[in-house]
């Protein structure tokens, strides 16, 4: 009876192919993840294109939404990197909107959360770090590797510190992807588990269980509110950390 009723909190993360595509032994199937990524991009594009096509002096709802998001990302960007960071605006804005939209759309019942797949968040993090590396090396050449050599370290300690700095640099994409993935996964599992408690308690038949069944329901409602906060916050954290790492590419001198 316990954990019965076919409630599996992990089942929501299952990837199943919609269109099987296996050319040359590569698995390139169009899965539910791909479908939801397309939906996310379509929703973001629709909001931004419609919002920016109005150009009214007094903005309507969608236009003011688009303008608010633009100003928010722009102020985050200039807060970390000053004016010269605005050249990265398209990149950071796209990342922010993609993560935000997939987090929020994932909260709709029956939808699929793209960012709860570690491969998606890892790909985003690797993309960020590739931009940092390529831009840093293209702009500063070998001077970019001064990032790994902090100033004012005694000579005998230097190899050790450089090793730590390199591992620290490698750990950035790991923690960047893990943070988003972990928060999304944990939140959705917690929601499913508390929802499952309600069903199990109501299905058990004991009168006492009917009495305590509303408690997990209340908690699930509260958790949903928390999840909305976490969804927005994680997108913000992802964007601001992208800015911090890009700032290293702009100014590699510690």
């Amino acid at each position, binding site marked *: 009876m316990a954990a019965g009723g076919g409630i599996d909190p992990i089942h929501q993360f299952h990837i199943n192919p919609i269109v099987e595509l296996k050319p040359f032994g590569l698995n390139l199937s169009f899965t539910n993840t791909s479908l939801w990524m397309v939906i996310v991009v379509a929703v973001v594009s629709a909001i931004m294109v419609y919002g920016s096509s109005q150009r009214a002096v007094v903005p309507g709802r969608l236009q003011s939404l688009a303008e608010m998001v633009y100003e928010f990302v722009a102020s985050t960007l200039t807060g970390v990197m000053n004016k010269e960071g605005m050249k990265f605006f398209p990149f950071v804005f796209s990342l922010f909107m993609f993560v935000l939209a997939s987090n929020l759309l994932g909260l709709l019942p029956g939808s699929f959360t793209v960012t709860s797949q570690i491969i998606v968040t890892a790909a985003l993090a690797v993309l960020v770090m590739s931009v940092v590396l390529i831009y840093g090396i293209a702009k500063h050449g070998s001077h970019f590797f001064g990032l790994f050599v*902090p100033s*004012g370290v005694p000579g005998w300690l230097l190899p050790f510190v450089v090793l730590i700095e390199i*591992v620290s640099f490698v*750990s950035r994409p790991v923690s960047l992807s893990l943070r988003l993935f972990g928060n999304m996964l944990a939140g959705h599992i917690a929601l499913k588990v508390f929802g499952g408690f309600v069903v199990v308690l109501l299905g058990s038949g004991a009168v006492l269980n009917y009495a305590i069944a509303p408690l997990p329901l209340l908690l699930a409602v509260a958790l949903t509110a928390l999840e909305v906060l976490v969804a927005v916050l994680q997108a913000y954290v992802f964007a601001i950390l992208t800015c911090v790492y890009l700032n290293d590419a702009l100014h590699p001198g510690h």
Partner: protein
Amino acid sequence: MSEPDPNASDSELRARLGSLKSAIKRAEESEKPGAGPAGEDKALAGAMSSGFRAATDLAGGVIAGALIGYLGDRWLGTSPFLLITFMVIGTIAGFRSVYRLGSRPTSGSKGDPKRD
């Protein structure tokens, strides 16, 4: 047509100049980093993002160190040694990132206090 009247009074011109100046000042202030209308919300978001960062930077360091050590072991065939070494280094790197995160606000204001 909308050209200002050349015979407009001096005080009117001065008032327009004053309002323009104050508008420019307002725009400049809003473009300064760290200034925003949603100060409290942003402070909360900043605090929570620092918390999330600290937690995962710590774990990220260990995981990245373990990953490097494991791959290095598989490449060089030195089974447990690189894994152990790089896990220790990764832990130190994780602590170092958290330390740097905590000491950053003061490091921006004066000099260069990083000399560990």
